[in-house]
């Protein structure tokens, strides 16, 4: 169920990227897609009744091993988050430059390349 909803969110983002006509809205759609994938990654790493994968002195190692959630997806998500923010920033920069050139964010008016 949770996976289904998460994938639905992914598809909503993709739908936005495919159908929106406004640069900012396309970027927003892209953001939604990326959020959905990040969440999926964390969900994959979750274990029932899990605890945070940070050791402290009070916790015996056996219990920690049995209960801690998977740390690898969390590290991957951190990487993915930074990549996403980088890409979003770059896309906003391009969108702003386009706005400066065309005076609009509407993609139907930004059409020079054809063929």
């Amino acid at each position, binding site marked *: 169920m949770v996976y289904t909803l998460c994938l639905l969110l992914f598809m909503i983002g993709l739908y936005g990227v495919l159908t929106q006509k406004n640069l900012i809205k396309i970027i927003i759609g892209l953001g939604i897609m990326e959020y959905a994938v990040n969440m999926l990654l964390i969900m994959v790493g979750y274990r029932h009744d899990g605890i945070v994968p940070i050791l*402290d002195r009070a916790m015996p190692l056996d219990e920690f091993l049995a209960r801690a959630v998977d740390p690898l997806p969390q590290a991957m998500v*951190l990487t993915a988050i930074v990549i996403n*923010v980088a890409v979003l920033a770059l896309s*906003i*920069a391009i969108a*702003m430059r386009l706005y*400066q050139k065309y*005076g609009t964010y509407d993609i139907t008016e930004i059409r020079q390349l054809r063929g």
Partner: protein
Amino acid sequence: MTGMTVIVKTITRWTAALIFLYGAYLVLYGHLSVGGGFAGGIILACSYVIMILAYGGKETIHALPKAVAARLDSIGALAFLILASLGMFGGFFFSNWIRDIWPGQQFRVFSAGIIPLANIAIALKVCVSLFLIFFILASLRMTRKGDKIEFRSEEVD
């Protein structure tokens, strides 16, 4: 961008300092508790961002000029790369050679060899990067003159 009122500025000065401290804590204790270079670095960037929001770009740029920030950005990234390359002393890139020499005690700050150092490098890099992203995108001026849109950032290099 001009600044906001005096009240906002005063409160911002205090909160920015607190946020900065919290970010620094996250960086330094990243290997022992929640946090780490990224979380800390981003929060450090946040303290600059609220300063931009409250004081306006002109004043913040005195605190950290764009050219200096761009340089720090390179230096932070380079520091991490050099740290990784120094691992060659331990035989491999990214090998934790400091820890081989000086293992330290578990659950103490000085216990993880290059990890705290790498955290600091990453934090510097991430902080400056996000500050720069925010600064160059938010401080951009676009003014419409007839059909043409003028376009300039506050500092030209």
